[in-house]
């Protein structure tokens, strides 16, 4: 269901020590990659709480990327292993809520791997484009008749006969 005019909005949480630098490198090396990722720099991929991911979707993101240093290379030792586990947990939960697994991506990219990061961004953008917009807040819209029903209650209460005690 691809819509030509649809440009996916993707939020990318990039680790300061590696992937963020990688994205810089991709930029300075003039590599071409999809312009759909809004990058948020974090000090470590381990800082990316599942809350951030859910908040991004709730606020209108169509996809989310988390990128960090390769396992074993994290500046804060074990933190990216935690990222790996949290990511696996959230991957188990998202489809239950109706969010396709393909809308999230975890990438390991060192500071030198601008090319790999650019490719991952392209892949995610393409996958999300295929899935179409997520439009999360539209899930909260009412299913019709609410305003009318609320008005009807007021009217009925006004018109009903007083019960004499």
């Amino acid at each position, binding site marked *: 269901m691809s819509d030509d005019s649809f440009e996916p909005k993707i939020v990318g949480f990039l680790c300061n020590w590696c992937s963020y630098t990688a994205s810089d490198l991709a930029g300075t090396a003039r590599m071409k990659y999809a312009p759909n990722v809004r990058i948020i720099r974090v000090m470590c991929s381990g800082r990316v709480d599942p809350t951030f991911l859910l908040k991004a979707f709730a606020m209108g993101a169509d996809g989310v990327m988390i990128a960090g240093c390769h396992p074993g290379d994290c500046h804060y030792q074990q933190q990216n292993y935690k990222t790996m586990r949290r990511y696996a947990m959230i991957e188990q939960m998202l*489809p239950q809520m109706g969010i396709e697994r393909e809308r999230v991506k975890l990438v390991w990219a060192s500071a030198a791997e601008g090319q790999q990061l650019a490719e991952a961004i392209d892949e995610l953008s393409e996958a999300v484009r295929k899935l179409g917009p997520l439009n999360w807040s539209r899930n909260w819209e009412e299913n019709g008749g609410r305003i009318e029903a609320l008005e009807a209650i007021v009217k009925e209460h006004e018109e009903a006969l007083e019960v004499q005690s």
Partner: protein
Amino acid sequence: MSEKPKGKLALYWAASCGGCDIAVLQIGARILDVAAAFDIVLWPCAADGKVRDVEKMADGEIDVCLFNGGIRTSEQEYMAQLLRRKSKVLVAFGSCAQEGCIPGLANMNNRREIFDSVYKEGSATTPENSDDVRPQPETEMPEGTLHLPVFYDTLKTLNQTVEVDYYLPGCPPEGDMIWTAITAIVEGKLPPPGSVIGANTTVCDECKRTRTEKKIKKFYRTWQIKPDPDICLLEQGLICCGIATRAGCGGLCPEVNSPCIGCHGPNDGVQDYGARMMSALASVIDSDDPEEIEQIIRDGVPDPVGSFYRFSLASSLLRRKKRSTNGNGAAAATKTKAS
């Protein structure tokens, strides 16, 4: 308490099980002090106040309204708006009003699916309905139009509907906490508006079990193991939600070998209860191998929403499952890997 002029108190129930109304009686004989301090103007479960009488009151005439239940129908929304207008202090009483609770779990479905299961597929409570009759919001009769409340796709919490002054957590709130709240209101010693009345620690802090280091290779369901009575249940692989849950219950469940399921809601600073649980549980999985991690989660947490959002789905960041009617995105996957 009784020297002051009598105030006006209202209690109301919306989408809830009725347990919150019963819980009020847990304050025991102190209910007489409440009756001495307040005229109860509305309490459908126990007293004879009429909605009509509330409608006739001046705005703000009710001093305190304890409102339990989530908002699932237009009638409940109307009552929430009415009681908001007529009350000086509106308290979201209990988990349903605060965070949606079990009725909010129906946000994994929509109106059509819920009606299908209640009116069509039949169950112990509905006899066969071969004509597929469903509630209609409007029915024309010679005497005029009859109305039934409109049933919403999504259950809303009280503060997603009207402004709420205070929250009293729990499914249902504990008697002592209710009493503390009532006393605070009567004496005017309330925390800043918007606060949760209750402790600001977690159930783990109230739990008497010994904790060492949490490292988990396998999660178990409660029926799969007989837990050691003295060691932290989470360390034994049971999904215990004490780490994210507000204290106040006294750690009753872990005390009897049953993991905390989170009925007291999120502790301060927890924006999304389920996300906090997922984050905390994932952190203690004892593996660095992606495949093994996936296996541990797939086997041990087959239903993350049910395990981590049992009480808080309606108030979570996502609030509900994606509606099939939403957007023009591809049809959502409904199956998890486990099923």
